[in-house]
């Protein structure tokens, strides 16, 4: 079952509908409920390689539904430490639990100061309101 719409307070957001959970010098990345709903049920996740470098505002992978392909935009720069294998095997987990089991990758941030440029939940909801 698809999750109900929500945007947790403890996350940082990127206006391309990606979220980051900051944990020390690491960050866990995923896509927001809005992005998952707009795309429809995910059927394919094309992840980056572990060890690859991701760059803020650039694509690090792809998410696909039956009808569409969407670039995954990195909210932060860093090195990929881990890919959520569960999403490779069962991509619909993103629709079911976008902020929990539906996380996509974990990175080590190369420039933690970049987090200052991300949106808090209020600012992200404002972005959604203006769509």
């Amino acid at each position, binding site marked *: 079952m698809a999750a109900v719409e929500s945007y947790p307070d403890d996350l940082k957001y990127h206006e391309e509908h990606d979220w980051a959970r900051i944990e020390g010098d690491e960050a866990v990345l995923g896509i927001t409920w809005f992005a998952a709903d707009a795309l429809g049920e995910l059927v394919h996740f094309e992840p980056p390689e572990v060890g690859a470098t991701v760059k803020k505002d650039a694509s690090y992978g792809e998410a*696909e539904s039956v*009808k569409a392909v969407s670039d995954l935009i990195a909210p932060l720069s860093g090195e990929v430490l881990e890919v959520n294998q569960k999403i490779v095997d069962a991509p619909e987990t993103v629709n079911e639990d976008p902020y929990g089991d539906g996380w996509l990758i974990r990175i080590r941030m190369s420039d933690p100061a970049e987090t200052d440029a991300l949106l808090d939940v209020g600012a992200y909801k404002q972005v959604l309101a203006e769509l």
Partner: protein
Amino acid sequence: MSQTLLRTPLHDRHVELGARMVPFAGWEMPVQYEGVIQEHRAVRTDAGVFDVSHMGEIEVEGPQANALLQSLLSNDLDRLEPGDAQYTLLTNERGGIIDDLIAYRLDACRYFLVVNASNRETDFRWLKEHEVRGSEVTDVSSEYALLAVQGPRAIERLGFPAAKAFTFAEDEIDGVEVMVNRTGYTGEDGCELLCMAEDAGTLWDAVLARGVVPCGLGARDTLRLEACLPLHGNDIGPETDPIAAALGWTCKLEKEFTGVEIIRRVKEEGPARKLVAFVMEDRAIPRQGMAIEGGGEVTSGTHSPTFDVGIGMGYVPAAQASPGTELAIDVRGKTRAARVVKRPIYKRED
């Protein structure tokens, strides 16, 4: 150029049901209600209903109607009795496919053609230009609505008697008169219900009240692709011939119709390219326009909800067309393996 999108008589019902509406062939159509995969499964396991009122209906009548259509359509209309229908092609002088359609024989002097929404005007113009004395071609699309009710339990839920595929009969549901066409575009049993446009709402409500699930164009596309039914504009078109598209069975080459001499020659010499169905071996989803190594191209691709794997159709050089042949597809810069399979990818159990 922006253009106002047309709406079917069921537009407001789709919006009320929470459908996501998208532009399609000049129409505003529901692409999904609850979700493409759920709707796909409803049709494979039970019954789903699609509003396909955007499709065109053209009537051809008169003492010369048969002769006119026999000279323009690839299949042999004389094999039909009144009450029979036939899948057939409207071809051009190059042997290409202007449209694929279903012809219904009402009686010896009256035929009904159901054509693709995107080709309605082209088809009508073509037929009108070729009209002869004693034949009258009329575009009656706006008078009718069309609902496709598809799935193993579709006929049972609607309470219709058993009937053969590609036949039609008049019937009635909740007081609405319908023509029940035993045709479809999903690979399942079912029917397409033609009614007067003003009755569409009542008919739709009656179908939903019988437990049939509303389905959008998203599921229509995954269903038809699993069943390897070609989509005009993707897999076939004015520049593709029926032989390469594996539609030779719809062409009666012993009769005369537009472009037949070219189609005869392709049949004799063998087509350079062939339309094949394939299943991905690597985890990836093929999409229309992707290159297939060796000179081929994907014409339709999606994720198969039934088999949970990427599937598609595409043209490949004839040497690569046998089932079992491995294909390499360029998925946005990455080479992904696929294998040619026998059509259809999905076949229902009888």
